[in-house]
């Protein structure tokens, strides 16, 4: 067990990648604080942690509020005595076209997905800096390295998270607190289920990934756990793409080529043209 005896906080731990991270952290021997705005779902995650034989603490909170972030740290330290690591994954999707995006939608995504990461990392980081060890992991997205059109502030927020993770690594690495970011590709979670339940979309989205499938929350969580653990003791200020190769797959989508015998010919005659489809969507 690579997190034995450690205390880990996971924001957005009620579902999806956050929940999977809680469960795997427990599997690896950690006590887990589950921070989420959705108490009911967070309680479910707590049961899953306890099934692994580890202690769970549910903290109902809004990650974009400084007072909540402070309370998250106080409750965690009060219950478990310390903090060894935090995974920030809380986000809210508010899609939209830039020309129409309302200010409040922009603010909501940035408040939760970027300011929230900062506030939670800062509050937990102070505890870890004081004891001179710890690991901070941000869940970003390949949308943070590739412009994700139609997703409102999401890509900008996720790009910011990568830089914040690097900044933490640079500022705090010398004091024993590492900062890193994981960039998941497409993952089937409650947040993305609305899209993936359409079999045509699910098949199409799998086909654009070099590995031919979308990811599972546990596959992202494994990367989070690795970065939390001492196995990653020299990894700092880095970001890791966990995406089946998708972020580097642009050239797969060049029409007029047959890819690797997989007959993935992206000519417009065989695959619905995405640009036009998006126009229809709009």
């Amino acid at each position, binding site marked *: 067990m690579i997190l034995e005896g450690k205390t880990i906080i996971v924001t957005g731990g009620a579902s999806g990648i956050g929940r999977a991270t809680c469960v795997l952290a427990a599997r690896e021997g950690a006590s887990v604080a589950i921070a989420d705005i959705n108490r009911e779902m967070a309680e479910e995650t707590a049961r899953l942690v306890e099934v692994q034989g580890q202690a769970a603490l549910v903290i109902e909170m809004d990650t974009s509020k400084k007072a909540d972030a402070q309370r998250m740290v106080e409750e965690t330290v009060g219950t478990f005595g310390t903090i060894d690591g935090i995974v920030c994954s809380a986000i809210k999707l508010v899609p939209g076209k830039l020309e129409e995006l309302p200010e409040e939608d922009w603010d909501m995504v940035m408040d939760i997905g970027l300011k929230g990461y900062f506030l939670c990392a800062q509050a937990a980081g102070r505890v870890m800096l004081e004891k001179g060890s710890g690991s901070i992991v941000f869940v970003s997205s390949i949308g943070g390295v*590739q412009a*994700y*059109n*139609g997703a409102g502030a999401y890509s900008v927020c996720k790009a910011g998270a990568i830089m914040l993770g690097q900044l933490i690594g640079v500022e705090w690495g010398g004091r024993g607190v590492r900062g890193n970011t994981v960039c998941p590709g497409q993952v089937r979670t409650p947040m993305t289920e609305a899209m993936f339940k359409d079999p045509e979309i699910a098949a199409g989205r799998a086909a*654009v990934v070099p590995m031919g499938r979308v990811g599972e929350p546990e596959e992202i969580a494994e990367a989070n756990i690795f970065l939390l653990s001492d196995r990653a003791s020299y990894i700092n200020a880095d970001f890791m793409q966990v995406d089946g190769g998708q972020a580097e797959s*642009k050239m797969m989508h060049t029409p*007029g080529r047959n890819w690797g015998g997989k007959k993935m010919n992206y000519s417009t005659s065989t695959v619905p043209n995405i640009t036009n489809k998006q126009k229809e*969507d709009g």
Partner: protein
Amino acid sequence: MSRFSDKVAIITGGASGIGKKTAEMFVEQGGKVLIGDIDEDAGKIVSLEIAKKFGKDSVSYIYLDVSNPEHCKSAVDFAISEFGSINCLLNSAIKMAPGMLKDLSLKDWNTMVNIGLTGTFLMTQAAGRWMIENKTPGSIVNMSSIGGRQPYGMSGAYSTVKAAVIMLAEHFGIEWGGHNVRVNSICAGHTETPLTAYLKDPEIKKGRSEVTPLQRVAQPIDIANGILFLFSEEADYITATAIDIDGGITKSVMNHMPGRKWK
């Protein structure tokens, strides 16, 4: 006074495509150019065409195999004897030897690495040495590609070579910054040239246009404009970097996600 008055450029692979267009425009904007190419017929024809338009003192051709160090030194010597100086170099010579890596022959690997990478090193070194020894500020541009930013499957050594020339330019750039010899790369997107004859297929051209955010493939002039910018004094503070001229395609992976129906 025009943009490249008294400036001399060597352009490898200058007999066709992006190299040819850059040569024409460089001369049109007042410069003198030495076209180096392994295709003797095409090189002489381009040279004659430019001479006819802009005067025979503005252009010359030399048979050049960039993978041969003697050829590279000769090209530099020839440019000096013809025009008296070298201020700019475009490394655009390349030969395609596509294939899947699993089956790629050593010969095909070596062809692309020798011409695309070693040739770029040899020419840059030869021209840069002259610039440094003669205290002549210079600008050197390596022709890279979106294939140097993202792996271009089935292209043999192409992507690896194109990624490497970006680093090579950065490395030369930091080494020679103090000599005011700037070295940069241009990463071209899908561009209509003799090298990309498949773009003549209207279906392929349409498809590739549609996957490009700007909705069209590039013409050689689009790329040449970027090269000439880096050659010019407008780019005096730009070194050791790479510029994408690709209509946005390198950043458009997420465009290819089926079912972007958010609401």
